[in-house]
């Protein structure tokens, strides 16, 4: 039992990889076995993560459940993993969404084995980013996560998949160059890649130079390199154009994970790496970041409202929601140490969870309707509530969660973000609320064109949600409701960590 507790994080991290290996042994024609093994492989980390939650001490802000094994001794880089409140929350989000994504993938019929293996690798990579406590390890997992996604989009995606997958991987990888640069700079200057030590060492540097460049310049370069890398991933306007294409062309489960988890990697990077390690630069450039975040909120909402492709509309909604997260991060950077920063970051983390749940739900429902009608064009759908009442009710619920209806998770998050950002960036908050208004506009547009209005002749014989689909979407609804009614439940996990972040 102690062995289990001592290696809990590594187990959570590598169980999917183990499942992938087992999957490789199962022949392609046994699709059923492949699916169920993959599902089991994604449920085990869920169980382990819940167990980790029970073992987690939320009254302490220190790193917990850590493991360290030397890796590159000459570089002082080790395999160092562990969790704190924020990473455990995001780990829980990931391991909750993965089984649902696998269940959604039960409708994939070609090259099932490769598909499932890629998903397992993706899960390990995403979890790795969240639990890594070593910069090199962080970078490795970050990059590894890109490859399975590329293949998932390119092989099982929609009509424009080649363009979309290439755009996704080239753009994101381009951003990660910054990550590599900054990582190397920091490692070289401080002599260690370990995140725990880096915190104190990096901030304590006063006289140092790299290749003849003064410390201030090095800091600035590393800061911007980090910012660009994470800004592409989140995405922050104007680096967002990969997202609509990638999300729209990816298979349903791929979109669920892309929107649900992968975008959070960027935000996590901001919170974990940029804010604590670059307080001076973050404060100086926070207004710019806030401006870009507000642009993401408003232009994302406007962009969503202007779409006639349902899936693309949901993709733009991700840009809109993540804009709030970045806005909160910017405010936290500008107002370090104040209660405003704390509330804003609390809201940011909660928004990450809330958006993960609601966007996964939305993409799932878009996929469900596509499977039945083979179209995503909002102008062709319509009146479906009459034929699919269960689907309609579920879609309305999830759409309201996405809209930030009070009583569901999104509102608790957005309220805290507005509260936290208002004293710091008043004008930005005002403009962001304009964006929030348009959020309502596009959500209602989606509902109106899908569910309401007269029912077209050709949709007269569609079938309502199956049991499998209800099983997939129910946890999302339940969690959204639970967090919305009682946010303290999940917030107790990361509240103290956020407070101690600076």
């Amino acid at each position, binding site marked *: 039992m102690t062995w289990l507790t001592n290696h809990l994080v590594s187990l959570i991290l590598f169980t999917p990889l183990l499942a992938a290996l087992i999957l490789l042994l199962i022949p392609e024609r046994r699709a059923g076995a492949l699916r169920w093994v993959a599902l089991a492989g994604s449920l085990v980390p869920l169980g382990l993560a819940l167990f980790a939650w029970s073992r987690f001490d939320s009254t302490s802000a220190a790193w917990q459940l850590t493991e360290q094994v030397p890796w590159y001794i000459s570089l002082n880089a080790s395999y160092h993993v562990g969790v704190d409140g924020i990473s455990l929350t995001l780990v829980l989000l990931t391991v909750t969404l993965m089984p649902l994504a696998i269940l959604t993938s039960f409708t994939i019929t070609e090259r099932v084995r490769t598909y499932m293996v890629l998903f397992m690798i993706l899960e390990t990579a995403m979890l790795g980013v969240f639990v890594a406590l070593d910069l090199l390890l962080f970078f490795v997992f970050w990059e590894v996560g890109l490859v399975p996604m590329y293949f998932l989009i390119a092989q099982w995606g929609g009509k424009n998949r080649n363009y979309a997958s290439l755009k996704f991987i080239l753009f994101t990888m381009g951003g990660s160059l910054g990550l590599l640069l900054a990582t190397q700079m920091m490692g070289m200057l401080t002599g260690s890649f370990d995140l725990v030590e880096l915190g104190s060492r990096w901030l304590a540097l006063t006289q140092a130079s790299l290749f003849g460049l003064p410390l201030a310049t090095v800091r600035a370069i590393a800061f911007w390199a980090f910012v660009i890398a994470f800004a592409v991933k989140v995405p922050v306007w104007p680096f967002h154009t990969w997202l609509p294409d990638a999300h729209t062309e990816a298979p349903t489960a791929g979109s669920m994970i892309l929107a649900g988890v992968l975008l959070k990697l960027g935000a996590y990077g901001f919170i974990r790496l940029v804010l604590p390690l670059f307080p001076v630069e973050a404060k100086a450039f926070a207004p710019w970041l806030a401006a870009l975040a507000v642009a993401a909120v408003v232009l994302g909402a406007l962009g969503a409202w202007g779409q006639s492709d349902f899936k693309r509309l949901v993709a733009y909604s991700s840009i809109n929601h993540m804009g709030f997260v970045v806005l909160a991060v910017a405010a936290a950077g500008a107002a370090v140490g104040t209660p405003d920063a*704390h509330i804003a970051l609390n809201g940011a983390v909660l928004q990450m969870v809330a958006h993960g749940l609601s966007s996964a739900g939305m993409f799932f429902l878009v996929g469900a309707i596509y499977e039945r009608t083979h179209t995503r064009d909002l102008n062709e759908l319509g009146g479906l509530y*009459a034929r699919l009442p269960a689907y309609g009710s579920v879609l309305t619920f999830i759409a309201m969660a996405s809209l930030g209806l009070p*009583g569901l998770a999104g509102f608790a998050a957005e309220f805290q973000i507005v509260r936290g950002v208002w004293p710091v960036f008043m004008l930005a908050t005002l403009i962001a609320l304009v964006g929030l208004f348009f959020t309502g506009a596009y959500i209602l547009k989606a509902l109106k064109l899908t569910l309401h209005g007269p029912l077209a002749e050709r949709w007269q014989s569609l079938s309502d949600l199956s049991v499998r689909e209800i099983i997939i979407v129910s946890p999302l609804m339940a969690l959204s409701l639970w967090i919305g009614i009682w946010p303290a439940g999940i917030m107790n996990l990361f509240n103290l960590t956020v407070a101690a972040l600076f």
Partner: protein
Amino acid sequence: MQTLLWLVPLPPLIAFALISLFARGKRGLSHWVALVSAGLSFLGSMTLFAWAVGRQDLLENPLAASTNWLPTGGSWLRVGVLLDPLAALTLFFVAWTVLMIFIYSVGYHNYGQPVGAHDLPGLPPHGAELKGAHGKVPSVEPLYARFFAFISLFAFAMFALVVSDNLLVLYVAWEIMGLCSYLLIGFWYARPSARDAAVKAFLTTRVGDMFMLLGMAALYSLTGTLNFREILSNPVVLDTLATTLSPVFGLSWAALIGLLIFAGTIGKSAQFPLHTWLPDAMEGPTPVSAMIHAATMVSAGVFLAARFFPLISAGWEAGQPLTTPMLVMAVVGSFTALFAALIALGQRDIKRVLAYSTISQLGYMVAALGIGAYGAAVFHLFTHAFFKALLFLGSGSVIHGMEHGQLATGDAADPQDMFSMGGLRKKMPVTFLTFLAGALALSGFPLLTAGFWSKDEILSSAFHGNHLIIFIVLALSALVTAFYSMRQVTLTFLGSPRTPSAEHTHESKVVMTVPLVVLAVFAIAAGWFGVPGSFLGLGAFLPNFIGNFLGGTHEAEAGAFNATPLLVSVGVSLTGLFLGWLVHRKQSSPSIDPLKRGLGFVYTALERKFWVDEAYDLVFIRPAKFLAETVTSVWIDRGLLDGILHGIGNFGNWFGRTLRRVIDIPVANGVPDGAAAGARWSGLKLRLTQSGHVQQYLVTSLMLVVLAGLVLLLVLNG
């Protein structure tokens, strides 16, 4: 008692969950669950009200309880319940109207009628064939259970809003009500007009909600709490807010937050300029219009403004100039009152008249708060809920009757057009009498009706406070109100039937008429509990129960009794009623409105609602759509940003190709190729010396040897 306060909103919520999960498609079960839940909340509310009335110091020591909810660093944001006089009074009328409307809905949706063969979910039922009946009979609503689920959710939200002790829970309930409003206006979702009306309602109120959220954030960050008692009953906090300046236009924080919160009221209570959603909301079933858009949800806006009256009036004393938010409220309220009343004149649809009437009456309340007449405003809120709900339910009964007549005769007239009606007093006597009571209350018919007392109090407050312009505007609107009310009554009930449908109407079922009667009783009697102490004669007999209950601490003293406002109020009411009857009493045509000829272009302006919707479309909606569909999606995202990306990609491509063309192929490839070619060429040339003739080889080698020897000789010797 605290527990009861917590529990009051819960039964409808449980009803919503139960109906949604277990009673879909089961009509009887769903309405019983809903009715039981409404009844339970009703009992709880009455118990609490009775308790509240019995206490002398409710204003200073309201019933309260709270619990931790949101962790914010080291502390918590608490949420809880509060029962003070305002909440108790509101709870009273909310509980009554909700219960009456729930009961009414059973009949409205034709419970017990056969299922229509051609009725589709999402469209209003249009009749079923029944053996032995003349023509068709009304059929039961296909989505019956769904209706009761949604109104239960709504009832939960309204109760929660009333009992909440902080702005956050109020906002949560506010938004959930907005959701229910959206769902219920779009109840018959297959109809494009209903679908669009629902979206319009949601989005228009959302504009106000966004501002309210800002106000909330500001209030929270400045005071560290959102609890009503901690902010609004705390003179220190109010003083600080009133004296600290915000960065916006030199307003104090109290003024700014007051304005922001008032923006929420403008949206929710459909004041100008965010009023356009309410008339369109009439697309929903009539019980929805009655409950949400007359008695409760729109009242929530005024309730909020009343709650925040201490903040809005912070720094104001009676007799002093109004604070900025108060001034804005007074102007907006009185303008809306007149504006909407005028538009109501040009409407033919029975529900639309009532919708504009609601907007107008809410304007009264808002204006009253704006001039500091807190008690008058709340009193009017109280009485208006009853008589407006009554009027809407009455109109629903009329429409029901008309539809029945239409189904029986196959007539093509619009059952909601007043000009198709006429003479219904004989066909639907109970509806007529109750509707008349409501209309008289709305017009402020002297002494007998509740509306008189509450409206008179507002007018007299305006007069006594020296707000003469407001007084005149409100008096004018009262005149117009009386006029259109009588117009409505005359066209609908008096005279003789103008269409076959009107001929064949009959009275609605008991389950629909009993709520009408109950509400009519309140429409008449409720006013007698608010008679001002200084009113001639009567004031001595009847204590000003409501005024005392609410506490006179918020408002100006009435001072000595002055006959002018009373005379004006009675005068405009009777004049309007008389004129309304006069103009329309001889109406015989189902299509021509005599006002049209009389007013000409003005009538068109009224009919077209002053073209506000068209203006909004032109100024806001179309540019926004253009911004969204063209500027953002096409120009910026695809054009500019993707253009940059594609540009980078194309540049990379071009660069690679050029490098290949300029360096790779000529140099990296070319040099070795050249070397090889050179070697080959020299080989080809040298090959020519190989003739194959041995003797030539020998000659050549001999000569070379000789040459070498000579060279050697020279070198050795030289």
